Every structure is written in structure tokens, then in C-alpha cells.
């Protein structure tokens, strides 16, 4: 089984984001592998284990620092990595998916491609769909359960209100992982050391013949800190009195009831 996992290097979800220069942000914060991609990596490792054979290749398109996201996937058991370098953190999904499709096609014949359902920085939620379209493969997203038998994959995805849809897909296919799919493993210290010796091929985005900012792409014209609410207006009294006041305020002041 040839399995590819696409990962993105993103600011930690706990990081404070400081907007700089109109469309950028202070990138000195801690970066991690995109949380949803951890489920993707874990599922790839489980499939390889189940099959008893196969290779898990981690692919990332990002700044040179994205090497650390690849290394963390190697540390939990991925076999090798490919880093497509660019100098931008914000890349249009169409560009990223084009680069991923080219580099995967160049590298081998995928049986399965796992990704996260979205990145937590730009929240585009579409790279895996574009990747699948570029490779002419079926794709499912928000995948919270995965089984594979007889060359077919059955995934379950939540479609609102706790309702679950199960979808059967033929191989090869693209799977966008979400929380609940599995419990990602932690790396052992010895594995982190070993991961440093694993092979990671590096190349520039341009070497793949992909333009980082083609014309006709959506353009980020401004990034702004989201407006924050102020301190709460604290209600006083006994619990019953507070409940009474709250309903009064919600009806007549906030007008939401």
C-alpha cells in the first residue's frame, strides 16, 4: 500500500495571533502540525499496520520550517517525507493542491491519501477536494470513522445534529480526517532521534512548475484582529433574581429572545 499524508505547519491553536502589516501576522509564535492532520497521520499508520506492508509518505507544502511538521510525523512512524518549499504561509488552496498533486504523482502511485479536514490557520477546507480533482480520485471529508476491506473504503462523516452518513469509496481515494477518527499516538524519545535519520526530499515550489501567486486567484487584502467583546456586565442577586434579570436583559436590551 502506498499511502500519502498531507500535513501543514500552522500556529499552535493556543497561540495569540498578532496581525502585522495589513496582511501578515507575527510568525514568531509556536508552530505545530495542523491538529486535524495528526488524525490523518495516525490513520495512515494504522492502515499500514493492518496491511502488514506499505509505505507512509508525509508531504507538506510550506515554509522551510514546515520540516518540523514532517519530522513529527516521521517520529510517530511515517517512513519518509517530501517538503515543497515556498516563502509564504498563506498560499491559495488551488496552488497548494496543484503542488501536492504534482509531487505525489511524481513520487509514486497512491492507494490512499489522507489529509486533515481543514487547516486551522486559513481554514480553507478545500485543498483535499482540489487535490482529489487534480488526481481524478473520489474524496470524502469530516471523516470520523474509517474501515477498509476488499479494495473498498467505508468512511463515516457527521453531517449535523449528530447524524452520520457512511460513504463507500473505491481505492485510490482521498480522505479528510477530523477529530474522533482515532487517538493519535505520542512519539517516543528514541523514535524522535531515529526520525532525524529518515529521508526527507526537499524542493522549491517553482521546481514543480507551480506559480505561488497566479493571477485570477482570490487575494487577501486585509487581515484584522477579530473584534473582542468587553468585560461582562455582572448580574447580582440570588440565583432566581439573576435568572429573572437575565431574561429581562435578553428580551429588552439584547433583543435576542
Amino acid at each position, binding site marked *: 500500500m502506498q499511502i500519502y499524508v498531507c500535513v501543514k505547519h500552522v500556529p499552535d491553536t493556543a497561540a495569540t495571533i498578532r496581525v502585522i502589516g495589513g496582511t501578515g501576522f507575527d510568525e514568531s509564535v509556536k508552530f505545530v502540525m495542523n491538529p486535524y492532520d495528526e488524525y490523518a497521520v495516525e490513520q495512515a499508520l494504522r492502515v499500514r499496520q493492518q496491511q502488514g506492508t506499505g509505505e507512509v509518505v508525509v508531504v507538506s507544502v510550506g515554509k522551510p520550517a514546515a520540516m518540523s511538521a514532517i519530522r513529527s510525523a516521521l517520529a510517530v512512524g511515517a517512513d519518509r517525507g517530501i517538503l515543497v518549499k515556498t516563502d509564504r504561509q498563506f498560499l491559495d488552496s488551488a496552488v497548494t493542491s496543484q503542488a501536492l498533486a504534482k509531487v505525489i504523482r511524481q513520487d509514486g502511485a497512491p492507494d490512499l491519501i489522507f489529509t486533515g479536514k481543514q487547516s486551522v490557520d*486559513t*481554514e480553507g477546507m478545500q485543498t483535499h477536494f482540489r487535490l482529489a480533482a487534480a488526481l481524478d480520485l473520489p474524496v470524502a*471529508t469530516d471523516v470520523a470513522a474509517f474501515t477498509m476491506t476488499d479494495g473498498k473504503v467505508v468512511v463515516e462523516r457527521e453531517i449535523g445534529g449528530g447524524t452520520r452518513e457512511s460513504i463507500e469509496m473505491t481505492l485510490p481515494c482521498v480522505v479528510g480526517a477530523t477529530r474522533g477518527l482515532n487517538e493519535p499516538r505520542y512519539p517516543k524519545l528514541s523514535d524522535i532521534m531515529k526520525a532525524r535519520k529518515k529521508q526527507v526530499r526537499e524542493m522549491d515550489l517553482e521546481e514543480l512548475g507551480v506559480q505561488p501567486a497566479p493571477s*485570477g486567484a482570490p487575494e487577501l487584502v486585509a487581515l*484584522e484582529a477579530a473584534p473582542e*467583546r468587553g468585560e461582562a456586565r455582572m448580574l447580582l442577586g440570588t440565583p432566581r433574581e439573576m*435568572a429573572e434579570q437575565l431574561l429581562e436583559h435578553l428580551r429588552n436590551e439584547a433583543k*435576542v429572545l
Partner: protein
Amino acid sequence: MAKVGVCIEMDRGEVKRANLGVLAAARGDGDNEVYALVSGRCEDRAKALLSEHGARKIVEISTEKGDLAASPDLEARVLGEAVKRYGFDLVLGLSSARGKDLLARIAALMNIPLTLDCIGLDIRERMVVKSHFSGKALARIKLPAGGCAACGIRPNAIEPAPAPVETEVETFRSSADDPGRMAVKEIRQGAGGEIDLTEADIVVAGGRGVGGAEGFRMLEACAEALRGAVGASRAAVDAGWAPHSMQVGQTGKTVSPRLYIACGISGSVQHFAGMKTAKAIVAINTDKDAPIFGKCDYGLQADLFEVVPALTEKLKSRLPG
């Protein structure tokens, strides 16, 4: 004037309420030509509602090549064909679980730009506002001029605005083939109640302070009195008191209700990421230093086990039925 196609998300033959905000966004300042695209037959009640909300045309999408509800691949191809045929400047839909999936398939297939989870849209300027970094920042994105683009609107982010029009109904028959690579096998209704969390007008959410699955029953009673849905913080989900489908926050659902009542939730940045666009946020917490009190509208420093039942009781006594 722009020609805008809106993919309408149906639920058992009815137009889901959240579509109405998308129709309002599609109309923009009033002179856009709005087409409502409905997979399959559109019943009279649905027609009347779409007409009341400004859809000048309803296009019933049909195909003889398979069941649209059972093949996401086919549905995207069929809609993609319709989008091309009508020559829309913009395709809109809900950024719900189903809507995101459908729009992403259409955009990938047609290779057109797509922005999902939009909370603002200016069609004349072709400018959208969407969250970045899970709501910590807002991005203003300019869609390319000329050609078609697609946008998914966060449920409840744009207010519905009725604008009755005369509506024509027509059928679009597609000849697109199903590649036959995927099929929906089963849909299992969840225990999440009648109201979808991401589309609920009111959300009552519980965190660590709720103390157990039992406490969530109490929140359910309150949510029911408010005709809302119940949500949970990551701490409550991790503790096993609520399913992941109820989680609000960075690794859960993003909600944009009119009213969000956070019970026993301290208010991490990750939690705020999932609910900060609510119109009003109420926090109930015994800890006066809980971070949530620093960024919400009304704070009740109190025991939720006393306040919530009192609230439920008062709501029930005032609401008929």
C-alpha cells in the same frame, strides 16, 4: 447586477431556515438576479418560502443518471453543469457540513475560487469576510473579477430579509455521468436532538462545571424551553459527558447563534474560536476569575445547578405550551 446561484439545502422536503440568510446575501443591495438551485423536486411550501425571500427563479435540478442524494460525485457534476449553463457570476450555499462538501466539490471540479465559512459578503465589490486562525482574525478576501466564484456562508451569520418576488420554476436536466466511485450507503440519525447545533438560534453549552452527563440533562431541559440546541466544551467531551458532535470550539463546531449560554465553561481561546460570533454571550460560572467573564455580554457568578433550573422554570412559565 450579478447573476447569483444559490444551492438550497433541503431537509426532508423543507427549505432549512439557514438558507434564508444566504438568499439575503445573494440579493445584496437588491438588484442581483437570484436563482435557487434545488436538487430534485421543490414542493409548494418550499417554493413559497424561496419566493418570499427573493428567488426570482427556482431551478429544479434533475438527472436520470442516478440518485443525487446517494452520490456526492454525481450531485457536484450535475450542479457544476448547471452553474456553467446559467453562467452565474457567483455560486452561494451554506457553509454547513453538507454545504461545504458540495461547494468544495463543485469548485474543485470547475476549478473556480471558493471561500467557505464566510461571515460577510459584498457582491458588488466581490469581497468576502471570513475567519482565519479559528476566529482570532478576520480576513478580507477579494474574489477575482470575471468568471465564476463560490462562497459558503456560515449559518446564521447573515440575517434573513424577506423580499417577496414573482418566481418562475424551471427544470435543469443534466447529462453528466456518475463516475461511480462513491456512494452514500447509510444515514443514521443522531441523538443530537431535532435542532442542528450549527444552525441553532440559541445554544446552551456546558463545560467542566457541569460535572457529568447528568448535568447535561439539565441543560437539555433549558435548551428545550428556549427551542435551542445543547453544546459542550472540549473538557466536557473529553470527560465523556457529551459526544464529540456536540463540541463547540476550535476542534469542534463553529456556531453563530443569536444567543449562547455558556454554563460552567471557563472560556479558553479555543472555545471562543467556536462561538465568538454569537450575537449575545451569557456566562454562568462560580469562579469570578473565569476568563469567559472578560469577553462576554452578561455574567452570572453563580452555581449553574441553581441558575439553570430557575431559568428553565421562568421560561416555561412565560412561553405558551
